[in-house]
């Protein structure tokens, strides 16, 4: 193990968490992430790859479609491992780039079902909720920041944002949730 | 009829019975020495200077709608000569000098008001770039001052200095800059040209150019064909469409620019202010409205309307710069069609067709150029040589690599 200690994207040793009404926002540093792009002429991998606008979990991985022939792959709990090497073992011949540190993951959960999540989303991003059931994933700007938004469940979102802008993204998400409470 | 305070006084006492039409509505004649296509600011100014300076009075201005219905009637009224590059600076300074004497030369109060323009800077790099620009302005006599933060605070203490993402560090001030009443400019030039014999023909759309053996013979219009020795095209956003009638492709894209005005408010902003960390500029009209704008929408368009993201972007900039405006209301927004050129600078030149002349590529800076553009275009039409302040505005500068790119963004019109 390296004799250096990591920091969370929000700048502390421990992840940040806040609750506003039914919504809880949690910084989630332990999830590993890598990008996966298929190369021309290489056979398709054994993995079941989700199509446009979708994410899919299989074999301990969560694959998120990000573009034609491209995915982001979540490896929950694997942030401190060699994510790219793990993935390369599963998808030989692909272009793989370690991304764990390129991004920050905020999980947003609701204690009151889907409604708070949907009210939150309609203030955050231009996403048609009728087309955003669990299993959906999309890239969408939130307050000028590019993010990947995953509908993990009716009452749960995962939002990946640029690591360097973690503080600004948190401010935006936290503000939306707080104002929802203020509005009652 | 000469306009004056005395005349207004006399008419007020006699029930305003003596006023005459500001211009005639003549039918087109069969032939003119010069036909100007486009009855906007530049076309009308061209006609005025042709008649006034170059003595060419057998001139028609053809306008497809009502005179002044293009960008001259729909802009943020700013005049300034704070340019950087040698191809531009003398021209815009010439324009500023013409502005300064406009009312007297056309006997019409277009309300040229030199209340100053302040370009804010937010970083040392921006300050250095403004210093380079301000010095260039001094070299042509345009004049400029470089303010530090305290200097800006003194002028506008209510700007957002203390809670800003991009703190204001200072600004480049051109005191001679300001605003002019845009419609008044069109009307003033139109009236003055009309008085000198120019035929301003409204509701007359040019539908074709008569060209034989590479030489222009006249124009086809919705009101019949008109012969002309020379044809000058000054149609801003419609340039590509009109020049296509001559088989020419242009280094121009037409883009939509929105402008905005708030409800009338008591005086709050004296001069023109531009935000340096977002695209937002604002002034307050004599009537009290905050007149402001920002980026073009960024896609090719002839629709004369923009979309909401740019509305938000512009006003976000405004709110960040001057959070006191939050409780004022937007009253109206416009979308105009801009002839965005490939380097962000204009073209005043002859074309490959003999007798066909082009005045175009004003991007969203055409209003301030109106007097000099008209003057220089008249000079070119009358003498076949470029005016001394407009020698760089050549059509072949793109092929030859002599672009005038103030922003340094290259051949991408929506970034200029």
């Amino acid at each position: 193990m390296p004799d250096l200690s990591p920091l969370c994207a929000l700048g502390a040793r421990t992840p940040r968490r806040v609750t506003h009404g039914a919504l809880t926002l949690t910084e989630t540093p332990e999830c590993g992430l890598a990008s996966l792009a298929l190369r021309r002429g290489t056979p398709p991998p054994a993995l079941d790859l989700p199509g446009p606008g979708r994410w899919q979990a299989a074999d301990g991985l969560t694959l998120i479609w990000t573009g034609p022939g491209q995915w982001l792959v979540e490896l929950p709990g694997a942030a401190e491992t060699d994510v790219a090497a793990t993935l390369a073992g599963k998808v030989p011949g692909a272009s793989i780039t370690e991304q764990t540190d390129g991004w920050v993951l905020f999980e947003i959960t609701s204690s009151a079902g889907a409604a708070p999540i949907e009210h939150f989303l309609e203030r955050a991003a231009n996403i048609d909720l009728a087309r955003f059931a669990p299993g959906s994933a999309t890239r969408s700007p939130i307050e000028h920041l590019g993010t990947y938004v995953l509908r993990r469940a009716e009452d749960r979102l995962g939002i990946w944002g640029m690591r360097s802008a973690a503080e600004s993204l948190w401010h935006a998400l936290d503000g939306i949730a707080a104002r929802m409470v203020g509005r009652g | 009829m000469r306009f004056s305070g005395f005349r207004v006084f006399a008419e007020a006492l006699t029930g305003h019975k003596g006023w005459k039409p500001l211009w005639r509505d003549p039918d087109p004649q069969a032939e003119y020495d010069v036909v100007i296509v486009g009855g906007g600011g530049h076309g009308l100014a061209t006609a005025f200077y042709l008649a006034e300076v170059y003595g060419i009075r057998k001139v028609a201005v053809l306008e497809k709608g009502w005179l002044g219905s293009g960008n001259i009637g729909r802009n943020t009224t700013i005049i300034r000569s704070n340019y950087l590059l040698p191809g531009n600076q003398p021209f815009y300074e010439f324009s500023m000098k013409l502005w300064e004497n406009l009312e007297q030369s056309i006997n019409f109060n277009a309300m040229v008001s030199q209340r100053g323009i302040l370009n804010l800077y937010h970083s040392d790099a921006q300050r250095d770039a403004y210093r380079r620009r301000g010095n260039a302005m001094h070299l042509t006599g345009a004049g400029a001052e470089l303010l530090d933060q305290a200097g800006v605070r003194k002028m506008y203490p209510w700007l957002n200095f203390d809670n800003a993402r991009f703190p204001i560090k200072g600004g480049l001030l051109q005191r001679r800059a300001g605003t002019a009443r845009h419609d008044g400019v069109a009307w003033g030039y139109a009236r003055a040209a009309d008085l000198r014999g120019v035929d301003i023909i409204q509701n007359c759309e040019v539908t074709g150019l008569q060209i034989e053996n590479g030489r222009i013979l006249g124009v086809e219009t919705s009101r019949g064909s008109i012969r002309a020795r020379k044809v000058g095209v000054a149609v801003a956003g419609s340039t590509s469409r009109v020049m296509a009638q001559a088989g020419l492709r242009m280094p121009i894209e037409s883009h939509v620019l929105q402008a905005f005005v708030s409800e009338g408010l008591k005086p709050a902003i004296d001069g023109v202010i531009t935000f340096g960390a977002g695209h937002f500029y604002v002034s307050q009209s004599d009537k009290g409205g905050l007149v402001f704008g920002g980026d073009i929408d960024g896609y090719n368009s002839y629709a004369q309307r923009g979309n909401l993201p740019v509305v938000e972007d512009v006003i976000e900039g405004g709110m960040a710069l001057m959070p006191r405006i939050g409780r004022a209301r937007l009253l109206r927004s416009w979308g105009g069609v801009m002839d965005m050129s490939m380097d962000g600078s204009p073209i005043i030149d002859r074309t490959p067709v003999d007798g066909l002349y082009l005045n175009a590529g004003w991007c969203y800076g055409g209003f301030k150029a109106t007097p000099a553009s008209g003057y220089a275009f008249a000079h070119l039409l009358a003498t076949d040589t470029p005016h001394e302040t407009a020698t760089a505005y050549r059509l072949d500068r793109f092929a030859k690599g002599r672009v005038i790119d103030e922003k340094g963004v290259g051949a991408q019109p929506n970034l200029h």
Partner: protein
Amino acid sequence: MLIPHPLLGLRDAQEFTYLGDARLIDRPTGGNEAELAEYVYLRDNPAGVHRELWFHEQGDRSWLVVTRNTLTHEILGAELARDVSLARKGDMA
């Protein structure tokens, strides 16, 4: 404005960066200065149907060729620029 992304359906135009005339796909390979100057600087700029390049920068990072009417802003279709480019290269080959 909403762009009908061929893979993702209607998307807010704010997610895109606009480039312009789709002819920019047809870069003259090994061209001379005059050909390149025309490629870089001259545009048809029609008032009507226009084929143009939009980049889904805040989305899937696909370049699209969008067919749009510049008078009405009506969008008549959108394709992946990559497919358009490959098809043209196939035609030329």
